[in-house]
């Protein structure tokens, strides 16, 4: 099972490195989002107080949506998702493999987003880098865990591009709330570690519950 996951992840990364299509477009889209937010929210040359974390998470969610859609669209083109399901690899391995690929892709995007948002919105995002990394990582995993199942489910559906955000955003409300609140707590001058820990705990619980749920439901949802 682990071997299957590793093979799938390696394959996804190889494909991505070759074409770099999804990485570049997602990155560009994320940056474009941030710019749009900047033009909307920055007034008199200063961003409103505490807007930075919100912008960061909004950009992550929009870019994540795009990345998920594109990744599975690519699998749909040569029906390679079917080939993966035909292989004797256990279904959870296929899920975990795709999940890992998405998380890595989003991590790369976030590595660019965080400094960019910190810069444009004068937010001290990098004040506590380890806490920030933990928060962003758990939030991304939660978002991707749900997103991978939904995007895989929708591969065979009609209107799949529009349905993914419709399904994904309401379900990932806790992630965005927890992510923004935790990040906001991190940029405060009086740093409150227990507050960050609370939201982090929520995110971890979310991740555990939803990855488990996804592993249970992946098989029945993907078989016709």
């Amino acid at each position: 099972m682990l071997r299957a996951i590793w093979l799938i992840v390696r394959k996804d990364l190889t494909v991505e490195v070759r074409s770099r299509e999804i990485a570049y477009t997602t990155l560009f889209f994320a940056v474009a989002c941030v710019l749009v937010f900047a033009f909307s929210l920055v007034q008199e040359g200063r961003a409103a107080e505490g807007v930075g974390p919100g912008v960061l998470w909004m950009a992550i969610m929009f870019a994540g949506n795009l990345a998920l859609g594109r990744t599975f669209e690519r699998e749909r083109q040569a029906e390679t998702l079917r080939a993966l399901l035909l292989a004797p690899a256990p279904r959870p391995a296929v899920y975990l493999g795709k999940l890992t690929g998405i998380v890595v892709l989003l991590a790369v995007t976030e590595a660019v987003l965080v400094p960019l948002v910190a810069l444009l919105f004068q937010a001290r995002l990098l004040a506590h880098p380890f806490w920030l990394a933990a928060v962003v990582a758990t939030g991304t995993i939660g978002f991707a865990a749900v997103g991978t199942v939904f995007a895989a489910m929708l591969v065979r559906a009609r209107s799949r591009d529009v349905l993914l955000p419709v399904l994904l955003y309401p379900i990932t409300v806790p992630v965005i709330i927890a992510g923004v609140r935790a990040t906001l707590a991190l940029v405060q001058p009086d740093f409150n570690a227990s507050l960050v820990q609370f939201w982090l705990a929520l995110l971890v619980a979310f991740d555990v519950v939803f990855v488990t749920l996804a592993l249970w439901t992946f098989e029945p949802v993907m078989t016709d």
Partner: protein
Amino acid sequence: MNRLDFNEIAADEVSRHFGRRRAVSRVTFKAGRGTILGLLGPNGAGKSTLLAMLATLLRPSSGTIRYGQSDAAAGPSLRARIGVLGHDLFLYPELTARENLAFFAGLYGIADPAAQARDALDRAGLAARADDPVSSLSRGMRQRVALERALIHDPRLALLDEPFTGLDDASTGALVGRLHALRASGAIVILATHDLDLAEGLLDCAIFLRDGRAVETVARPDRLRTTYRAVIGR
């Protein structure tokens, strides 16, 4: 990896509908080891749907498909013995032929995927282009790689959907040879095709499908075209 083995595949009154549309209707057949079975019929006859059900990708709405003593519930151990060549080629265009083959070989639990991939490429006559991305290969070459991918794990059951599409003369000959070899090695080959002339010398048994139903089953078919016209009409 646990690999199931079976001596015959048996479909019994297999049907599949999508809402109100019946795609396959009460098809029954048996095929044993060392057989090449052909599914013949016009477009929309249900050939691809039937193949998908045999591949365990789709569940029949009614009826059963048995692989020896087991059925689709056997899961991974069964899938390890089934090879599928689909309409869409199941290849990653950005990866090279070698990488595609090695990836799937690994996924099917083969001990030395790289070596297996190398052998498969030699068999397909594509060793020279092995390290080019699949997207740069011609349709015929891609078809050959796809076939190798389908057969790389030595399946007991090979399901091929229109395998002769887009192949030139030489490749067609090679494919026919490959199918004969598969039969000789005891595999069960089920293929859907439009190409009646090719199928003529090849098939041990032919099932004519129309509107999802098996209207005729012929063992040792000859003069396929005449039979086809008579049975399918038009």
